[in-house]
């Protein structure tokens, strides 16, 4: 394995791991903010308990999100120094704004939300939760602005072999960002919805704190349902946009070697032979690809071979512009399939919850526990499709992954870092799962116990007095 492969593996591992926790944080704090608001409004203690209990899971995931986020930021300079030199002018700006506008807001108001309960009025606590939620969302916006630039470079020119930003507003109105941001945020909200839904289902099955978990379940299904439909619609518009901006990615996600013909059929599954550039067999659904691509039952889609020839003319030959087809193809199917399943489950959950019969639907509650994994897998495969589907480019059409690597980092160094980060992550993941499982099992009692301890006011004398 070469330095480039190792750097790519490390990027994949660290990014996927980081993105396990980011959606949890984004959505959990959103739920917390809702519950804090309800607590201010209805003044019922159950909303405070809900905020504290689900906030605990938020805090667990946020801690890992933060520490792995630093790694994400530093890794560009460490492993991809030539990319950083080429793109720093454009790519660095959103990262810097993210820190300034989003991270400070999140980290400061998390402190206020966590420790300010006995010192500040309820509405300030609720406002703090909303500010944290706003911070996490803004953070996603800026990081996706940076990512969208890699997918679809806009608002820049190349000068002396370097990208130079010419329009900041183009960067933040990037058409790719406008489809990627809502899709990611809806995906995140669904993650929290299914997590709360699944944990609530588990406790409802065990008949523990039924009132608490019924209420939590209702809220989670409302959010999951809205998010589910959001995912589908934003995903559809993203796919259509990609047809124009990154046709190769879409062709690979369909394993479409030759032009589709008009109308285009959608391949449900198939046996892909990347060596001979053909599919041994496939199961097709007529018209569907035309519809997915153009919202119309007519229209043909270009295949990878045609696109390869086009790209060779545009960007030079001797380069394989076809990304790893199988990975992209299956990632897309898993993502879309699980997305659809999530919509279905959240609709059913909403239906049962509304009829008040949820506690009797044991089979459904059991499947909701398993369904906790769905959004995580869908989020991950979504990113795999997005990032692997862009290969061989880091910045589409301008800079390849092979060019991006740090020349002064040795194989030994990168092997060392990959192994140590991965081991740290495996340990963190195990601990995280154990801790969330413990919180989930104990239910809101865990909050009650801790509140008894912290009710004793830890702070009593003025600091600057005496």
């Amino acid at each position: 394995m070469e330095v480039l492969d190792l750097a790519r593996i490390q990027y994949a591992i660290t990014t996927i791991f980081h993105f396990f926790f980011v959606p949890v944080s984004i959505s959990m704090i959103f739920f917390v903010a809702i519950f804090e608001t309800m607590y201010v409004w209805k003044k019922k203690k159950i909303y405070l308990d809900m905020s504290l209990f689900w906030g605990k899971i938020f805090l667990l995931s946020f801690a890992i999100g933060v520490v792995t986020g630093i790694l994400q930021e530093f890794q560009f300079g460490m492993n991809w120094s030539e990319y950083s030199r080429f793109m720093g002018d454009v790519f660095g700006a959103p990262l810097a704004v993210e820190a300034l506008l989003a991270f400070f807001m999140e980290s400061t108001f998390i402190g206020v939300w966590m420790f300010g309960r006995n010192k500040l009025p309820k509405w300030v606590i609720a406002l703090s939760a909303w500010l944290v939620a706003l911070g996490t969302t803004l953070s996603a916006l800026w990081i996706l602005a940076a990512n969208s630039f890699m997918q679809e470079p806009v608002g820049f020119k190349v000068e002396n072999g370097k990208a130079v930003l010419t329009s900041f507003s183009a960067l933040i109105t990037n058409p790719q960002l406008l489809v990627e941001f809502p899709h990611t945020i809806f995906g995140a909200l669904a993650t929290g919805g299914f997590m709360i839904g699944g944990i609530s289902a588990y406790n409802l099955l065990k008949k523990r704190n039924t009132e608490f978990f019924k209420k939590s379940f209702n809220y989670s299904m409302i959010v999951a349902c809205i998010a589910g439909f959001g995912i589908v619609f934003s995903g559809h518009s993203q796919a259509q946009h990609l047809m124009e901006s990154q046709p190769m990615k879409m062709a690979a996600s369909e394993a479409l070697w030759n032009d589709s013909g008009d109308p285009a059929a959608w391949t449900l599954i198939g046996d892909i032979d990347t060596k001979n550039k053909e599919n041994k067999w496939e199961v097709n659904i007529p018209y569907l690809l035309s519809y997915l691509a153009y919202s119309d039952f007519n229209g043909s889609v270009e295949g990878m071979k045609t696109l390869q020839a086009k790209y060779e003319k545009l960007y030079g030959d001797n380069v394989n512009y076809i990304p790893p087809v199988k990975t992209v193809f299956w990632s897309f199917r898993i993502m879309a399939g699980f997305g659809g399943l999530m919509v279905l489950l959240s609709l059913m959950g909403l239906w049962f919850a509304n009829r008040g019969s949820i506690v009797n639907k044991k089979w459904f509650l059991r499947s909701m526990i398993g369904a906790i994994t769905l959004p995580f897998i869908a989020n991950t495969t979504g990113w795999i499709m997005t990032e692997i589907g862009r290969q061989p480019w880091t910045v589409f059409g301008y800079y390849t992954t092979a060019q991006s690597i740090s020349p002064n980092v040795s194989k030994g160094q990168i092997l060392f870092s990959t192994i140590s980060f991965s081991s740290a992550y495996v340990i963190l993941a195990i601990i995280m799962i154990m801790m969330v499982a413990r919180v989930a099992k104990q239910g809101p009692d865990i909050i009650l116990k801790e509140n008894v301890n912290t009710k004793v006011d830890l702070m009593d004398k003025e600091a600057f007095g005496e």
Partner: protein
Amino acid sequence: MSLEELWFVLIAVLFVGFFFLEGFDFGVGMSTRLLAKNKHEREQIQATIGPFWDANEVWLITAGGALFAAFPNWYATMFSGYYTLFVILLLVLIARGVGIEYSHHAKSDQGKNLWYWLFFIGSVAAPFLLGMLFTSLVRGMPIDAKMHLYGSFSDFVNVYSLVGGLAVVLLSLVHGLTFIGLRTTGDVRKRAISLLNKVYILLFVGEVIFAVLSYYQTDLFTVRPVATPLLLGLTVLATVLGMLFANKKREGFAFTFSGLAIVFVVSMLFIGLFPRVMISSIDPSFNLTIENAASGHYTLSVMTKVACTLLPFVLGYQIWSYYVFRKRISPKK
């Protein structure tokens, strides 16, 4: 002032702010082992930074982001050149962040203990590594004509960088103990002051050795014949005053001066670098400067506008949060 100069100053300010704020965080982390006698004291000490440490660490993230945006070549050369150091630093920061957060959630005493150990180790190792980074930065590193840094072991690990690392650890510990003195009541507060007296003596020795080595190992005294000795002198003066005020139980002043000592040292390093950002030990013409490392004019001006608009708010609510949590923390009953 040119935009490049302005951004050099802003990045210096971000690092100064980071070392000032995270400095006492690190010191508090070290104190969970060096000062606390039992788990109640450990929790009391940790509670002093509970609401703040997260935002303090963001100063480092922001400094990194600003470096990337304003000086991509500086960011690329430094982060790839100091590869192994950054790997260890990241592991240490992961351990520390997870340790401090998860110690709240641990159920058993053993579990809590494990998290506290991680928090402690991270709190010692992180300032040490950052100290090594910055001292070797002003000493100069083998950077070639293409701005690539191929360093050997002794470029990163040598007497000067080790002393630099140690000095930052001691500065952080002093700053942290002073912060604990300021933020607690009872026995912990008293013992923090008496431990402080011992650590201060070590710090004096460290500062003197650091100053002497700086004279021989760097060009700080030749490029800044006035500022360097002045700031070193001010550092020592701030240290003396900090110790005096701590012993008079004027912890507010003591904290100001232990913080100023950090501000002076870090400022001295950045002023000594300017207008270079990384010094090449191969050939001065290979130096990275604010000119050849910087982003384009447009990017810098956009970021200047963004920073000027946002900074007042950022500073405003951070100061507000320190005001909200201004009361002293007493031992748990």
